[in-house]
């Protein structure tokens, strides 16, 4: 395994010149990039399992980016970053709700793109080892069982499908269960960036977690919003058994 792992990225965007420029830019960053200009082959390639990450433009000829995302999500949990038009809040919220891991408004600074890719990419291959994120182990709180080695979540023994970001978010919340986690900290750890004041990305991810895991656990709110501060994962008193395997330092 190389020290700087080669991230394999699939870029689906109909702007050929942009694709060329990005290929030139990303190559020295240790990123292997494959570009597809139209949606249908894009979906096919995304489902091939040969990539670690998909960058998907919302505006595509023929099929919209959302439809492409839906069809990828139907079969795969590969992390997807959507390129949206800036200022179009609806686009970005819809994208996140449909299971995109993050979004980047276009035009973007390519350094930002690399940062986003790395933020998500770091986690998708825990074995490639960059220290902090590789704490292996299981977390068990209430009815949820989270395994960081296999990156799976089970609720009462049942497997729950999650995107990469949702998994990371849940992991952070579970580690701090019973304590309030600040939005700023969460977004830095999970999305790898600071949120602008009206960025609702985190809230969308939290609400899809709520939807997938149920709003209540043992009669109390599972993930409580603390207005103006952040979120609190409920540590239901009797059922609370934090797995000892989760080593801390």
């Amino acid at each position, binding site marked *: 395994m190389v020290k700087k792992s080669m991230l394999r990225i699939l870029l689906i965007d109909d*702007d050929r010149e*942009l694709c060329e420029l990005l290929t030139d830019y990303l190559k020295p960053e240790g990123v292997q990039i494959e570009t597809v200009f139209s949606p249908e082959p894009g979906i096919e390639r995304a489902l091939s399992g040969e990539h670690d990450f998909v960058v998907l433009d919302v505006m595509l000829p023929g099929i919209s980016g959302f439809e492409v995302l839906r069809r990828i999500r139907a079969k795969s949990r590969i992390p997807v970053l959507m390129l949206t038009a800036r*200022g179009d809040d609806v686009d970005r919220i819809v994208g996140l709700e449909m299971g995109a891991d993050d979004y980047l408004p*276009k035009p973007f*600074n390519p350094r930002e793109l690399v940062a986003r890719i790395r933020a998500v990419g770091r986690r998708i291959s825990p074995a490639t080892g960059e220290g902090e994120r590789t704490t292996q182990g299981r977390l068990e709180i209430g009815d949820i069982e989270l395994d960081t080695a296999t990156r799976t979540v089970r609720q009462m023994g049942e497997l729950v499908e999650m995107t990469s970001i949702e998994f990371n978010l849940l992991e952070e919340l579970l580690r701090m269960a019973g304590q309030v986690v600040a939005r700023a900290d969460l977004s830095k750890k999970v999305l790898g960036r600071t949120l602008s*004041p009206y960025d609702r990305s985190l809230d969308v991810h939290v609400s899809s977690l709520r939807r997938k895991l149920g709003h209540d656990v043992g009669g109390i709110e599972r993930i409580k919003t603390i207005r103006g501060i952040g979120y609190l994962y409920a540590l239901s008193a009797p059922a609370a058994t934090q797995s000892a395997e989760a080593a801390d330092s």
Partner: protein
Amino acid sequence: MRRTLFSKIFLWFWLASAFIGVISAALSLKVDPKSISINRYSEKVINAGKSFIEIYEKDGPPALGHACDDFERENRVSIYLFKGSRGPLSGRQNVTFEGRHTAITAAATGMASDTPSARGVWYAAALGDDYTVLAELPPPMPMEQFFQPEFLGLRLAMSFIVAGLFSYLLARSLTRPILQLRKATRRFAGGALATRVGSILEIRKDEIADLGWDFDTMAERIEALVDAQQRLLRDISHELRSPLARLNVALELARRNSKENPGNALDRIERESERLNELISELLTLTLLESGTEKIEKEPINLAGLVESIVEDSDFEARDRNRLVKIVTCEEVVVNGSEEMLLRAIENVIRNAIRYTNEGTSVEVSLLRQEIDERKFAVLRVRDHGPGVPEAALGKVFKPFYRVEDDRGRLTGGTGIGLAITERSVLVHGGTITVSNVSDGDGLLVEILLPISEG
């Protein structure tokens, strides 16, 4: 009371037709004045006739003549008694041919009979035993013809009620479609460009219906124009962004390739491209706001917290340029609205104030609760210590790309759309925004009023 078109039409038509009713009632009396006289005298004449029969049979014609004279003196009605075609039995001969004929007719038919006479009307009634009484009745006085006491009240009331009913229906049928048109116009003005009135006015086929159709035609055209403009702006923005996206990547590539000259110029290009991008976003935001089609999702917002955080952030930026932003007063206020829009709106005003306030001075922000006309408002005031704005230009500062001085904007940055966005956002929230120069000529005061939701 407000003088609505409805009340005008209703009252005028009611008055007019009631008046017509009164006059025609009066005219109809004038056409048939003899009935007034007959109604008034017939009973008296018949009673007198019956007493004359007794007098005649007992005392003979001279006594009858006296009785007739007495009656005439008392009632100003000349009266005669006939028996069959003979008469007058008093022996006097001053009965005209018409009078005699009337009496004979009455005697022959056994019923009352009348004929117009030179002085009024001949009236004869059969009294039985072949007797007939004849009287020459005077016409009614002119005023009596107008105010016949028995039916006047009823007639007037009827004409008032009927006229009122019809006027009401008329006024309603005229003004109701106008009200509907007005409602539609207001909805349209409020941004619901799909508003049409065709279905409302479908049954009518008059000028108002034509107006409705014209409204629809106009609305269609405006909607198409606005749509086209928006689509164009969206397309332009999108098309501008693609080269910008490429520019950004190319820029980073250039930066990487020119290690020996990690230059100012590239930073400058990046900054300008960022500025261009910001301009495009703001332009898009403004178009969306102006079209009024962007639905805002309203939620309760802690305005005080929002203002505090904006002031904190902008103070941080302002300090770099040796200016301060500080809060003078900040009361707890909760308003309903879109946090993002309000944040942008307030931020734009404060940024603008920082841009114009003199070096070493501070921008003062205050947030208060105030009651105006029994409605509660959140009042946000942002005051700078800059040159202010010429009085004549105060109304224009919310126009996109308006600058008080041509060179100023470029020196101090800003896209020129910020305040226009602020104005639209405030209006969308049902609030108002005003600018004024501080009275001592030291700075500009921007005041935003936002309605506070109750409960």
